[in-house]
């Protein structure tokens, strides 16, 4: 089959090499690669979550009970309806080495059949049963590496938990039902269920979670089994889930982070699109004489368009394919590097949907930015060949091409909105990116107009530098637009990061507690109070009794049967902690109703957090039914109160009036405000005296939270840096495209008597002015964008972080100067004679 003429001529034209198209290919590969990488990585993580859902849940289905084990009827149902049952206990506790060093651990007691699904990996290799077995009267334990390092222990060493000591026999490599990245307050320490029983930590009211995991008959539908279970025990007050829907929160998180990073990658692609347009424009400018010649030989404008369209299409395809390859391979390369930061370690596979989406983004971006200069090229007037003045056309292309370009832009926006799975976020990003591009273009026009309007500058180097920035055909506008937008994204991300970190670390109340203590038994409260208060430096100790339970009905309507708009609110979905009180604590603000009298002796009544009441449409006088330790308590809402959760004191959404809970099994929780210098002393005093009480250092929790935030922000920063990378590519492309003009200018300057240093000064000043203006505008727009997100999307208090802005924008400015000088360095050594002969 004959190759169409346009393709034949395009192929001949491509013999000229890829000069001028390296930036084109790199910009597309970078953007497409970023999107494909994020898409592939998040798809592989989600796929891994789905593939390992059974192992991660620990069974086909799981039932979690707090503070109480399953009763006989429930156990009978479990045994009768499942093929196998495994019981696991989770609680937080303190582990102590022989030197008395104590740390918080996530303690887990497992039975003989654990894990029902997946494999436990231990170092040195052994079975879990062997590792946890009793040897010479000492029970075994396995732990994560962090415990060994923090307590300076090795294999075979012993560690104290509760009333007993256990021998550490292995380091946990893989714990199939533990999801990495999920907030944990300490390393895992795993013992057998029998060992856990003997620690003395499991007492009535302890914050112990008992998890029943079920291997069901292969033919059974876990969802149906779960429905049957809940129907059989509607008042059980447990949290039950099955593996197909067990990880929705984590999947949603991965999806959302993936969407966000995809959109940042899309911003990089769009910024790179400016480079794509510049490269095509620059390439076609060099082809003007050829185009005119073709037209003089009888080529129609349409054929000219096709010839260059096919060339651009082939090069775009190369860029897109390179990006797709890089993106597809990313999980393979990145997983070993950042595996710890991922919730699961994904395997390698090709994920066609994200790759297809990335290719579509790349193709649409190339079309949106390349079509315009291509359409202009067909209008090159061939008559200029008779006058040796053929110049590129700057006027608007014909209407069909304008419509096609607009269509590509709209399709890109549509794909951003509907292709990322989060239309609102996609629309926001599309508006911000387009707005940013337009704003930067307008600013560039304004700046160039301003520079042109400056009065005559006497200093020649500065005058020449400014002339370079404003002469006809300069790429100043597109460089400012792309580099400025890239820098803005980086400034925004740096500021958002700084705001989030500060909100966690610096917006703590002045008198934030240093410790929370949990699992204080009722018979320990006096001794506990005395122990803490005896330590010098303790400013305040607050202690409250607490019980756990669930909301099962509101105004008599059972949760679950109520399909109203509030049925998935945490208030009715999660297990809640309650307390009871006679009097209002200081600082309590009632928003409705009356606090009960001190000698209240009526039916159960509660005080409810006013924000919960508002969200759940609960008013004073309404009734809420709670299941506490298997017993239903119907309580009337006596009042609503405003709770300041940021104060970080001990507080509860629900406070019961006296009379309902005093006799139920309960524990106490406490918080202590202490001088910084007294923290260790308080910690030691409590952990040495009370082996069952768990002391949580607020500082450690904050460090773990910021650590998690740091991992996320590193990923965001890495992708955001690509937007700057795209901007840098545009700058590099502009420098390369303008090289001939710069060489000519520098030669003329040399002919007129300029030294190398004088030419260098001109270049330095040109890029310094470009970098300075771009950096200032980017700092302003990036700050504005971050402020809007913090103020309106996050509803937080705005903190302006000077180092974040100066670091990002200033770094970008320096980069412009360095890159600019690097790109023009060789020009300085250009000998005038050959250039003058050639022109």
């Amino acid at each position: 089959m004959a190759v169409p003429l346009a393709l034949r001529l395009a192929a001949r034209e491509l013999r000229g090499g890829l000069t001028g198209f390296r930036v084109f290919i790199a910009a597309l590969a970078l953007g497409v690669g970023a999107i494909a990488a994020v898409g592939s990585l998040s798809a592989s993580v989600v796929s891994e979550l789905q593939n390992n859902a059974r192992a991660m849940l620990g069974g086909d289905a799981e039932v979690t009970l707090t503070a109480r084990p399953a009763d006989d009827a429930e156990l009978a149902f479990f045994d009768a309806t499942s093929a196998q049952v495994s019981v696991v206990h989770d609680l937080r506790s303190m582990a102590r080495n022989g030197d008395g060093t104590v740390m918080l651990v996530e303690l887990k007691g497992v039975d003989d059949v654990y894990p029902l699904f997946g494999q436990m990996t231990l170092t040195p290799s052994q079975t879990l049963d062997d590792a946890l077995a009793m040897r010479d009267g000492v029970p075994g334990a396995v732990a994560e590496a962090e415990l060994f390092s923090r307590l300076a222990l090795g294999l075979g060493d012993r560690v104290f938990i509760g009333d007993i000591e256990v021998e550490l026999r292995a380091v946990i490599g893989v714990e199939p039902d533990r999801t990495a990245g999920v907030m944990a307050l300490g390393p895992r320490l795993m013992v057998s269920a029998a060992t856990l029983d003997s620690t003395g930590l499991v007492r009535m009211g302890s914050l112990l979670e008992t998890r029943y995991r079920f291997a069901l008959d292969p033919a059974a539908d876990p969802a149906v089994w779960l429905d049957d279970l809940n129907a059989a025990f509607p008042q059980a007050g447990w949290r039950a889930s099955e593996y197909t829907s067990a990880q929705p929160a984590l999947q949603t998180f991965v999806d959302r982070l993936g969407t966000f990073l995809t959109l940042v990658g899309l911003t990089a692609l769009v910024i790179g699109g400016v480079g794509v347009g510049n490269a095509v424009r620059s390439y076609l400018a060099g082809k003007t004489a050829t185009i005119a010649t073709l037209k003089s030989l009888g080529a129609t404008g349409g054929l000219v368009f096709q010839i260059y369209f096919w060339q651009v299409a082939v090069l775009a395809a190369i860029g897109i394919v390179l990006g797709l390859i890089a993106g597809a391979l990313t999980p393979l390369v990145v997983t070993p590097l950042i595996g710890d930061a991922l919730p699961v370690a994904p395997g390698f596979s090709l994920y066609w949907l994200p790759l297809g989406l990335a290719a579509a983004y790349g193709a649409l971006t190339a079309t949106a930015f390349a079509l315009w200069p291509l359409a202009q090229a067909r209008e090159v007037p061939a008559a200029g060949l008779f006058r040796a003045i053929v110049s590129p056309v700057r006027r608007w292309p014909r209407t069909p091409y304008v419509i096609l370009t607009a269509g590509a832009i709209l399709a890109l926006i549509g794909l951003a909105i509907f292709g990322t799975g989060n239309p609102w976020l996609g629309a926001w990003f599309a508006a911000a990116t387009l707005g940013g591009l337009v704003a930067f273009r307008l600013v560039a026009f304004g700046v160039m107009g301003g520079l042109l309007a400056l009065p005559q500058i006497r200093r020649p180097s500065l005058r020449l530098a400014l002339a370079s920035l404003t002469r006809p055909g300069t790429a100043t506008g597109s460089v400012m637009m792309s580099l400025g937008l890239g820098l803005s994204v980086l400034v925004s991300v740096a500021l958002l990061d700084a705001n989030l970190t500060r909100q966690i670390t610096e917006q703590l109340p002045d008198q934030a507690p240093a410790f929370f203590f949990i699992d204080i038994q009722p018979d320990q409260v006096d001794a506990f109070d005395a122990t803490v208060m005896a330590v010098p430096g303790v400013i305040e100790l607050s202690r409250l009794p607490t019980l756990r339970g669930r909301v099962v009905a509101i105004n008599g309507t059972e949760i679950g049967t109520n399909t109203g708009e509030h049925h998935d609110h945490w208030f009715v979905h999660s297990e809640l902690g309650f307390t009871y009180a006679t009097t209002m604590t200081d600082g309590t603000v009632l928003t409705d109703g009356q606090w009960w009298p001190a000698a209240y002796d009526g039916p159960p009544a509660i005080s409810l957090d006013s924000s919960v009441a508002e969200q759940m449409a609960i008013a004073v006088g309404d009734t809420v039914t709670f299941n506490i330790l298997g017993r239903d308590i119907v309580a009337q809402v006596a009042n609503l109160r405003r709770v300041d959760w940021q104060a970080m004191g001990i507080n509860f959404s629900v406070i019961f009036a006296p009379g309902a809970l005093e006799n139920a099994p309960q524990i106490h929780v406490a918080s202590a405000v202490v001088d910084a210098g007294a923290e260790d002393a308080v910690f030691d005093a409590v952990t040495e005296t009370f082996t069952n009480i768990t002391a949580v250092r607020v500082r450690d929790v904050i460090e773990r939270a910021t650590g998690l935030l740091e991992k996320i922000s590193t990923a965001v920063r890495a992708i955001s840096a690509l937007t700057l990378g795209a901007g840098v590519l545009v700058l590099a492309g502009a420098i390369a495209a303008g090289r001939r003009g710069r060489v000519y200018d520098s030669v003329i300057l040399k002919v007129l008597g300029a030294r190398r240093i004088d030419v260098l000064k001109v270049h330095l000043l040109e890029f310094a002015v470009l970098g300075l203006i771009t950096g200032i505008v980017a700092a302003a727009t990036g700050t504005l964008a971050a402020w809007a997100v913090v103020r309106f999307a996050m509803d937080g208090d705005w903190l302006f972080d000077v180092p974040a802005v100066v670091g990002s924008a200033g770094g970008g400015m320096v980069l412009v100067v360095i890159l600019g000088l690097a790109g023009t360095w060789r020009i300085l050594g250009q000998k005038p004679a050959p250039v003058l002969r050639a022109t």
Partner: protein
Amino acid sequence: MREARAPLVTLIAFMMSSMAAASQPLVQLRGVALTLESAAGAVNILRGVDLDIGASETLAITGPSGSGKSTLLAVLTGLERPSAGTVTVAGHNLGTMDEDALALFRRNTIGIVFQSFHLIPTMTALENVAVPLELAGNKDAFAVAGASLEAAGLGPRMGHYPSQMSGGEQQRVAIARAFAGAPALVIADEPTGNLDTNTGAAIVDLMFSIQASQHTALVLITHDRTIAQRCDRIIHMQDGRAVPATKVT
């Protein structure tokens, strides 16, 4: 859509006008004027040019810079539309043709030789000569182009790129390209302007030799009186007007 409808309509218009061509001079310009707007005001580049050129005739156009010579050639080839007047070439009234029809007209009727050669740098000599033939849909484009280059004395250089050839060789390729499709009219814009005297003379010899063998009409701009004298007729352009010049015999 413009491209889609072009071939059929253009072909019909082209065939109809071709049928009327036999009884007329090959080129007929009547009252051709071209005025361009510039920042300094309207500039009259051509001011009512009347000109007939017969088939197989050779015509030299002389005149000082800015007199309108190059613009006249651009108008003759349909690359520039006049502001007033009619241009008819080989029976085609160029004023009634759209851009695609003009492109079709050029590929079938006109050959052009430029002062700066304007070969396509990414194509070999053979490919450069073949391009107009390929555009015209000639299935033997490369064979014809090869013969054309042989005739121009460039048989051994067919596979060379323009950058690998001298100026004279490049202009020979350009001449071969202009004549390869056996057009009715070849336009040459100072074809020796970028060449030394000896090379220029050889080029002119080549051009006139092919012209004579193909009976092509040849219009050339030149500042060289000797070359102009080799033509059947000379016109002198002065301030946008064509004035017949005396030919020394």
